[in-house]
Each structure stands twice: as structure tokens, then as C-alpha cells.
């Protein structure tokens, strides 16, 4: 596991690179950086030199007689034009690689919602962290439950918007094991900056073992423990505290058995049925004093998982 302690990027520009695309993108970045530096140094140099050399001195008027020169002006339109074409083509080749997933890519489903990521593996298991095997192409098939989000993994140099009502795809091939930042790059509200997760790249052979172990948490843990895990992983924790502090949604502390006031003035007892309904149809009986921002978990939590969550809430005295 020594690879987990790889040093961070030694470069000033760009973060650590950990995917096949990263090398290509960094190469494009460097090409553009060199061209820009040459132009910037040239322009600054000329500006400073002219200002120093042609500072106004008493009684010396401007001496330039030439007020236009078509050849010169065409030259400084065409030469930059050629360089721009080069940058376009270099940028295009890297982009083609970024947008053409290989046939055999391992598919992971992604749902973005305020303010948590759900990664669904082919066996149906859902996690809030993206786990992938090293040296194997992975394709994310993404959609959003509410507003636009954007999947961004800086170390892989990939980004793609996650849009409600349609699927977008993003692929990468991780080249080194380790844990890397995963951000939401499209502004999505109060906790946009906490919609942070990470990608865990497993060394060869370890990914399958991890997936098998992680998928069995309902069998290996007590319902309340499993509920606690779900509470953290599936986004409940972003809006519901367990210590009574005020967040976007009501706290779970001592919620069980309480009589809650709804936004239409009626009251309801917080029991298993109410919790289940609030998870599946959050807007139908919204609590008074809270904004109706909770997304539905219909089809995203299994019955056993909802039961585990109920057990967890029940345990918070």
C-alpha cells in the first residue's frame, strides 16, 4: 500500500496527475503555457522598452513617421492565427480522448442531488464515495435528481455536468492507487462546497474484495449501525443533525415519538410510517419552518435500508 503515500504534485500549475488523460491534458496545458509566456514576455518587454526609450524629453516630438503598415499588420494577424490553429488542434486531440470511452469500461451509475453523490455499482450497492480499480477504464453514467451538478475529479482532469432529466457520461482510467478529491463544480446552493467526496483507486485485485465486503453491510451490522452508515453516506447528514443543532432539516435527536407540526398547521406523530413517507415523498408532509428542499429517495433506498434508518433514528434518544 506504499502507493497511497504518493507525494502531491510537485508542479506549480495543475494538481497531482493520476489518470491516462491527465498526462495528455498537462501536455496541452504546457504547450499553451509556453506560447502564452513567449507572447507575454515579448509584449511586456516591448512595452517597457518603448516607454523607457521614448519617454518624453523637453522639446522632442514623436519621431515615428509610419502610421500604418499593411504588411506588418497582416503579419501580426496571420502568425498568431497559425499559432491559434495549433492550439485548437492540440486541444482537440486531448478532448477526443476525454470524450471517447473504450467499449469495455466498467460502468458505475451516479446520481447527484443536493448535496450528496450516490455511486451505484453493478450489483446495486450504493456508496457516497467512488471506488474504482486501477488501470481499468471506468465510465460514469450520471444524472441529477434536482438541479445541475458537475462531476469534477481534478487529479484525473475530467469534468462533466450532471443534469436532471438526462444522462451524461464521463470516463477515465486511473493510473495509480490512492485517494483523490472529487468535487461538485456547478453551483447548487447552500452546501455546494460540501458536496465533496473522494475517489478511492484500489490496487489490482482489491476492488472486487472491497465491493463484496461493502455490499454486505446490512447483513454484517445491526440495523441501527447500518442506519448510521446510511445516514452518513446517503446524504441525510447534510441536512439533519444528530445532536439537536439546527440545519436545513429537523434534527434527528429525540425525534422519535415527537409530535411534529406540519406546514399546513396539522400535526403528526414521528413514527415509522411518517419517517418512511418523508424519505420517499419528502414534500407530502413537510414540517413547518423548513424549506421544501429535500429530494426524494424513491427507488434509491431498499426497504431494508429504510428500516435500518428508522432503527437508527429510534436509537437517538
Amino acid at each position, binding site marked *: 500500500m506504499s502507493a497511497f503515500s504518493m507525494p502531491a504534485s510537485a508542479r*506549480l*500549475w495543475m494538481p497531482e496527475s493520476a489518470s491516462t488523460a491527465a498526462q*495528455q491534458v498537462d501536455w496541452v496545458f504546457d504547450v499553451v503555457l509556453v506560447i*502564452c509566456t513567449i507572447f507575454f514576455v515579448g509584449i511586456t518587454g516591448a512595452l517597457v522598452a518603448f516607454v523607457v526609450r521614448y519617454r518624453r524629453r523637453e522639446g522632442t516630438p514623436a519621431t515615428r513617421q*509610419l502610421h*500604418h503598415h499593411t504588411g*506588418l499588420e497582416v503579419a501580426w494577424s496571420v502568425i498568431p492565427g497559425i499559432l491559434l*490553429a495549433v492550439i485548437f488542434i492540440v486541444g*482537440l486531440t486531448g478532448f477526443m480522448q476525454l470524450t471517447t470511452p473504450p467499449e469495455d469500461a466498467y460502468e458505475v451509475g451516479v446520481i447527484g442531488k443536493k448535496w450528496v453523490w450516490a455511486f451505484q455499482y453493478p450489483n446495486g450497492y450504493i456508496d457516497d464515495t467512488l471506488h474504482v480499480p486501477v488501470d481499468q477504464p471506468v465510465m460514469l453514467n450520471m444524472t441529477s435528481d434536482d438541479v445541475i451538478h458537475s462531476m469534477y475529479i481534478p487529479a484525473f482532469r475530467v469534468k462533466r455536468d450532471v443534469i*436532471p432529466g438526462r444522462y451524461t457520461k464521463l470516463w477515465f482510467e486511473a493510473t495509480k492507487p490512492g485517494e483523490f478529491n472529487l468535487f461538485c463544480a456547478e453551483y447548487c446552493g447552500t452546501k455546494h462546497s460540501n458536496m465533496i467526496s473522494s475517489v478511492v483507486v484500489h490496487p489490482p485485485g482489491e476492488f472486487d474484495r472491497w465491493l463484496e465486503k461493502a455490499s454486505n453491510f446490512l447483513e454484517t451490522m445491526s440495523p441501527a449501525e447500518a442506519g448510521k452508515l446510511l445516514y452518513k453516506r446517503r446524504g441525510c447528514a447534510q441536512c439533519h443533525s444528530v445532536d439537536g443543532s439546527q440545519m436545513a432539516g429537523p434534527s434527528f435527536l429525540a425525534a422519535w415519538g415527537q409530535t411534529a407540526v406540519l406546514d399546513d398547521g396539522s400535526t403528526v406523530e414521528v413514527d415509522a410510517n411518517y419517517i418512511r413517507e418523508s424519505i420517499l415523498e419528502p414534500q407530502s408532509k413537510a414540517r413547518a419552518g423548513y424549506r421544501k428542499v429535500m429530494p426524494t429517495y424513491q427507488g434509491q433506498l431498499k426497504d431494508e435500508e429504510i428500516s435500518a434508518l428508522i432503527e437508527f433514528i429510534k436509537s437517538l434518544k
Partner: protein
Amino acid sequence: MSTTLPPTTRLPEQAWKSEPISEPDYLRNKRGIMSWVYTLDHKRIGVMYLIGILTAFLMGGVMAILVRTELLSPSRTIMGPDAYNHMFTLHGAIMTFLFIIPSIPAALGNFILPIMLGAKDVAFPRMNLASWYLWVFGAVFLIAAMALNGLDTGWTFYTPYSTTTNSSVISATLGVFILGFSSIFTGINFIATVHIMRPKGMTWFRMPLFLWSLYSTAIIQVLATPVLGITLLLLIAERALGIGFFDPKLGGDPVLYQHFFWFYSHPAVYIMILPAMGVISELISTFSRTPIFGYRFMCYSAIAIAFLGFLVWGHHMFTSESAMAAVIFSALTFSVSIPSGIKVFNWLATLYKGSISLTTPMCFALSFILLFTIGGLTGLFLGALATDIHLHDTYFVVAHFHYVMMGGSLMAFIGGMFYWWPKLFGKMYSEFWGRISCLIIFIGFNWTFFPQFILGSRGMPRRFYDYKPEYQGLHVISTSGAFFLGIGLILCAAVFLHSLWRGRRAPANPWGAATLEWQTASPPPLHNFVDDPVVTDPYDMADFELQRDTGDYVRRPYTPSQSDGTETQS
């Protein structure tokens, strides 16, 4: 060919002397609040715009400082996440819609355009006043959002976030809708003025480049702004009436909104930068005491930028549109760099063998060239597809557009303010403190925004309240630069205020420029000129000589001059 002035039509001496003239200036022509409220004088309307936009700039600037202060540390520093989201949204919306878009065209342009053209006023003075009142109404609606539920959508109002959030989106978008009409009115007025109000001798290719830039800008304002208006109405209809245009839950398409929005907002970038380029052309030429190099290329490049600016909106959506669209928009995007490059090279060539004096406006103009160059060159990283995917929606973009909008438009606006200040208010200012403020602003600006390029390239997303600790060092550097920048701007304001209070009287032509606004008194009389101005080559400054006692430049008695090729067509 009318450079040869008949000796008998020399300008009357008093027209460019600051000594008492036959007519009181526009500020003293009439008195009382009503003389401002109902004024149709483009100069007074320009001054009212100036007061309005500077108030907006102050508000937006305070918000910027609060945003930067919050970013000193991850998580909470001085405010919560919702307050932060409201703060950066209003900073962006106020700076864009209330400040930068109207700054040079509506404030400086309103004042200068007719005088520079040799006209008595704009073509439609009532419409001009109406545009100012629309600006005020728009500002009230936009700022009312702050007093109601705030605004937390980002200045871009992306759907479906903007149609589902609880903040006051309708008030704010109505405000922007009204501001759009204000902008359209100014545009129509400028187009008409340039077409029909040019006096005898003012041919298209004898117009100063500032007028070319305002004219190109006006075309964009008139053609692009209605698209924003319609888009915002659709957004309001979706939010208020539940009609599905953009929200997939109602059968709409959220990316469609982005296309509509950027179809206006990318050309709007050129509404912000083209007038700035025009200002810089005037400043560089005047303070090098030599005609602008490649005048015609400068005219054509302004028109080219205005045209190409309409074709590149899709580069804001490389991560949401189809790969094919991204490739096409990337290619088109690079084309717009060519005319911008021409401008930078021609400014440099103008300095060559000039007689350069580093006055305050010139210091701002030279700062503009350096900062705009960085802004433009970093745009290449964003136009290139492979790198944009990584850099999109990070601080790299934030730094890039601040270099263009603030390092570009704002520096040109301040430079233009220092340049035309003597004409606006008839007062000179402290050159020493003016230059010091430029130096502090230049250093403070780079100190604030250059680290953000590095932050962004290392993966720091924009609009983040909280962030990973690894980014804190660069955030702290950036924030300390922002405080320094703030000091520079305050100093700059102090120089202006001190000038109003204590400034020396300005002569008619303190810089020795040849454009027409310098051939009338400072400040100008109500109808701009006592006698009809005589139109010559706008950049032929050789005939103006400095009078030591008054600090005024006066045209040498007429001698037949040789023509120099740039003005063979008229």
C-alpha cells in the same frame, strides 16, 4: 481631403481658453434639483449615470471584500454559507449589470460621444433621459431582491436552480430585464447619433477610435440584449406560472437556458471590453503624441470583435453541450483572439518612436495593456478543449474574467475618468497621487488575482464557501491582495474628490489631444461648442503647442500641412 483649413476659419481663441467665455458651462447653466431631474443635456445625464454606477461599484466592491474575507479560512470566517452565496451572487450581478455594462458607454460615452463627434447632443435626448430612469428602476428591482429574500443563484441565474430556490429571483430578473432596456436605449441613441449627427467633415474614417468602439458596442447592445430580455421573461414565466421551458420536471431543458443566456452574455463581454479598448486607443495615442498605429485595422477589428462575439457563446458550455458543438465553438472562439491581438500589437506600435509621458491616464492605459494581455492569453487555456474541461468552473476562470473585466474594463474606465475628468468638471487633480493610486491598484490587482490562476489550475472550484485545507495558502495571499487593491481604489476616489474640492482649474486642452472634445471649454457650455468645431484628423497632434502659463495646448497658427496617407479617404 479637408485637412487644409482655410485660414479664415480658424477656431475662435476663446473657445479653448478656460477664461470666462460668452456662455456659462453646463454645470452652471441652470441651477436647482429640477434642472437635473428633467435635464435633456447628454452631459448632465452622463454625470447622473456616473453617480449611479459609482454607487453600484462601491456596493459591489464592499461585497467583494466581504467575499474575500470569508475565504480567508475554510468553513466559517465571518458569515454562513447562505450569506456567502447571496454575497457573491449580488457582487456579480451588481458589478455586471449595474456597473461594467453601463460604465464606459452610458457614463463616459454619454458625456463624450456627442462632443467628440462635434454634435450638440445625442440624436434622441428624451430617450437618453429615459434610459437613465430605466437604469434607476432596474437598480431598485435588483437591489430590492437583497431586501426581500436575497438572491443566491449566481449572476447567471442557471435553471432549474433559479426556478426552485426560495430567494427573490423574480425581482432580480425583472431588474435585469429593465436594465436591458436602459442599455438598448443607449445603444439605439448612439447608433443614430453616429449615423446622423456627424458634422461636415466628420467622415467615418475620421472618427476617433473611441467612437468606433462605442458604435460597435451599441450594435451588440441592440442586437443581443433582447435575447436576454426574452430569456428572463421565460424564466419568470416558469417560476411564477409553472410553464415548463427549462425545468425537466415540467418538460423543459436546462441546457437550453444556458444557450439563451450566453447568447446574450458572451456578446455582453464585448459590450464591456470594446468601449475600454476605444478609451485605451485615445489614451495611448494622446500620451505618445503620435497618431494611433494602423487606424483602419483598429476600426475593422472593433467591428470584427462585435461580429465574432456573437458566434462563440457555446464555449461556456464545453462540459454540458455535445462534443460536436464543443469542437465547433472552440474553433470559433480562437477566431475572436485575432482582432484582439491586432489591437494589442497596434497599441505597442503606437508607442514606438512616440513621445511618451507617464501621466495618470497613461499609467492606467499601460496597466490595461499588460492586464488585458494576461486576460486574453489565459483565455487560450479555456478556449482549448482539453484544458478547458479541467479548468471550467474553477478559480482559473474567475481569475481570467477578472483580468479582462477588472484589469481590462475597470482600468480603462478609471484611465478614461482621469483623462476626461478635466473636461467633465473643469478641474485638474494631483498627478502624483493619481499615479500612486495606479501603482497600488496594479500591484494589488495582480496580487489578488494571479494566485487564483494557480488555485484554479490546481482544482479549486469556484463559488465554494468551504474548501480543502490545501488551498488555504493561496486564498490567504489572494485576500490580502484584495485589501491592498481596496486601498488603491479608495486612494483613487480620494484623488477625484480632492480635485473637485481643491483642484486647479482645467484648461480646455490639458493633454494636447486633437479630438474635438478638447476644442471646447472645460467644462463645456450647454450646447458643447460656442462656434462650430472644425473637423481634422483626430490624431494629428503636431499642431498643438503647450502654453507654459496656462497649461493649455493651443493650436499653432495655420500652416498648410502635408497629408500622411491615413486620411486620404474622406
